């Protein structure tokens, strides 16, 4: 997902190498990032294609095979109701990664919008940055918990328990994590505004809307992409934390955090059951962090080519 934009050739430049090939070349030299991308790709493929190959339903209850250890029929064993843990891990991974991606999209869109508007229009700068500072001063985890507690019932009634919780968690995480992106983007936009090409564009009468879309946005793409990758990691951790505290998805709807939370009750008897969801969360976050690290270097033209 994250390296998709680097693989596609740029639209404007058809002659020879595009900028994205340079980025990819630099990205390749970062061992950790390449490894992280491979691991992340593997996890995404495992949770999307995996259920097609491993056809046990994650909600199928085989009560006679409950609490069984690792075997050929159940490579990760089964839980207290005899549900296959491998299947539940894959189903949980789909939800966790979907939450991570969607929440990241919301937070990056919000952050970019607010950052660009604040940086570009001087009149709105004070107001919007005041808002950003206000949000940064909010105690986020407590507020997230409160938001989930308050709106879970209402949304569950109108969209069904799974979809309602998904919408709630994704938007709650998105609304509480856009501030860093907004600050970075605003800083970049403020610096860009002083550059000659912006002055040139303005002097030929470019309207503000086209100015932002054609001249400003493409130039702030790199910090946005970096904060987007890191945003996936934080969103996955936040979702798991909510599920872990019992305020995430409903119990029959597995996510990695929920699986970890459920496994805690059997920590004494089956400590290995905690291990798989925890490892999945940590590996995903670790790989995404490494990708972000590599992207930051690859997208920085001062480092690139050295």
């Amino acid at each position, binding site marked *: 997902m994250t390296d998709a934009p680097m693989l596609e050739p740029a639209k404007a430049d058809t002659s020879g190498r595009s900028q994205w090939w340079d980025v990819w070349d630099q990205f390749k030299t970062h061992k950790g990032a390449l490894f992280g991308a491979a691991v992340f790709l593997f996890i995404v493929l495992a949770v999307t294609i995996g259920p097609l190959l491993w056809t046990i339903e994650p909600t199928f209850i085989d009560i006679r095979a409950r609490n069984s250890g690792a075997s050929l029929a159940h490579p990760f064993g089964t839980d207290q109701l005899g549900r296959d843990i491998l299947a539940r891990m894959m189903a949980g991974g789909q939800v966790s990664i979907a939450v991570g991606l969607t929440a990241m999209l919301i937070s990056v869109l919000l952050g970019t919008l607010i950052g660009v508007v604040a940086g570009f229009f001087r009149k709105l700068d004070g107001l919007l940055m005041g808002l950003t*500072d*206000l949000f*940064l*001063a*909010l*105690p*986020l*985890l*407590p*507020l997230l*918990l*409160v*938001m989930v*507690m*308050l*709106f879970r*019932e*209402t949304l569950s009634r109108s969209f069904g328990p799974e979809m309602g919780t998904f919408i709630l968690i994704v938007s709650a995480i998105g609304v509480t994590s856009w501030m860093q992106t907004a600050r970075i983007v605003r800083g970049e936009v403020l610096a860009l505004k002083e550059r000659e090409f912006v002055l040139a564009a303005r002097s030929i009468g470019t309207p503000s809307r086209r100015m932002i879309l054609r001249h400003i946005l493409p130039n702030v793409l790199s910090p946005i992409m970096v904060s987007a990758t890191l945003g996936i*990691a934080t969103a996955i*951790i936040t979702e*798991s*934390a909510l599920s*872990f*505290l019992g*305020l995430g998805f409903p119990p029959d709807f597995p996510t990695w*955090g929920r699986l*970890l939370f459920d496994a*805690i009750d059997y*920590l*004494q008897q089956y*400590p290995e059951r*905690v*291990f798989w969801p*925890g490892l999945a*969360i*940590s590996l995903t*976050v*670790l790989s995404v*962090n*490494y990708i972000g690290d590599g992207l930051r270097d690859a997208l920085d033209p001062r480092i690139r080519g050295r």
Partner: protein
Amino acid sequence: MLTFTFRRLLLAIPTLVLISLIIFLLLDLAPGDPLADQPLSIPPEVRQKMRDALGLDSPAYVRYLLWAKQFFWVEPLVFVDWVAGTSFSEGMQRILSWQFRAPVFDIIIQRLPQTLWVVGLAYVIGVLIALPIGIISAYKQYSWFDQIGTFVSMIGFSVPPFFSGVLMIVFFAIMLPWFPSIYDTTLVVNDFESFGQQIRQMTLPVMVLALQTTAQLSRFMRASMLDNLNHDYVRTARAKGMTEKVVLLVHVLRNSMIPVVTVIALGIPSIFGGAIITEQIFKVNGLGQLLITAIYANDLPMVQTLAFIFAVLIVLCNLIADVLYGLLDPRIRYD
């Protein structure tokens, strides 16, 4: 500098008022009814009287102003009374928790020591470990020490506390029964043995929290040291014949500490936030656990007050970080 501090303090007031309003309005939407757990046999008119007594039917702004009065006026007075032995607050209504039927602040005072001990100690230990790691990693950039440091801090970033905590329990409480997995708050430290027990039960949560602090701070310290190591004054110091130790620990370290100190100040409130999860895992009944149980129990005054205290901490630490930055770095003066 003083005018700057004063101006920032004044600016913090509207921020805090807005935050308290946001928290109040959010909680105002809560669907729960605080009288829901009362027996059904209570006649409706008595129930109505109870609602009136709790002030549930008055308009939102009245309830907000009442809460604000209690938080900013009554509770400080109670504190003054408690310290000075006066009786200003006699007969005044304090913020009452619906769950405990006791003043919110009394319960917070009960819970504060556990949080301060575990979380505060973890933060101090994390800082003490992180700084040397950051310094050595920067001085020996790309050495094996640096590589391991980078990897360990990446892990510290990526392994969330609810997994590292559980792993610690699996390894050090179940497989090797060295430490207890549950924090016993009733333990009274009065002799050498109970002190040892206290240390043992604090070890696991402190380790989990310290890992996170170390991961973030050591990277930051390293970056800050690297920034300074290439400056001209370092070459000058070496050319003057200073020993490496003096160059590193006196010249470079003092300059590198400026941003690090502000980051340490900024991290204090976030540690309180992260402690919610760690306290939940190890059953430390501190402030984080208090918040969680209050949320489950629909105890709105408690949630509101705790969330606001967290917000005050964040704003205060931001202010301290800003002032420290100006004090430590004479190049930055805000006036």
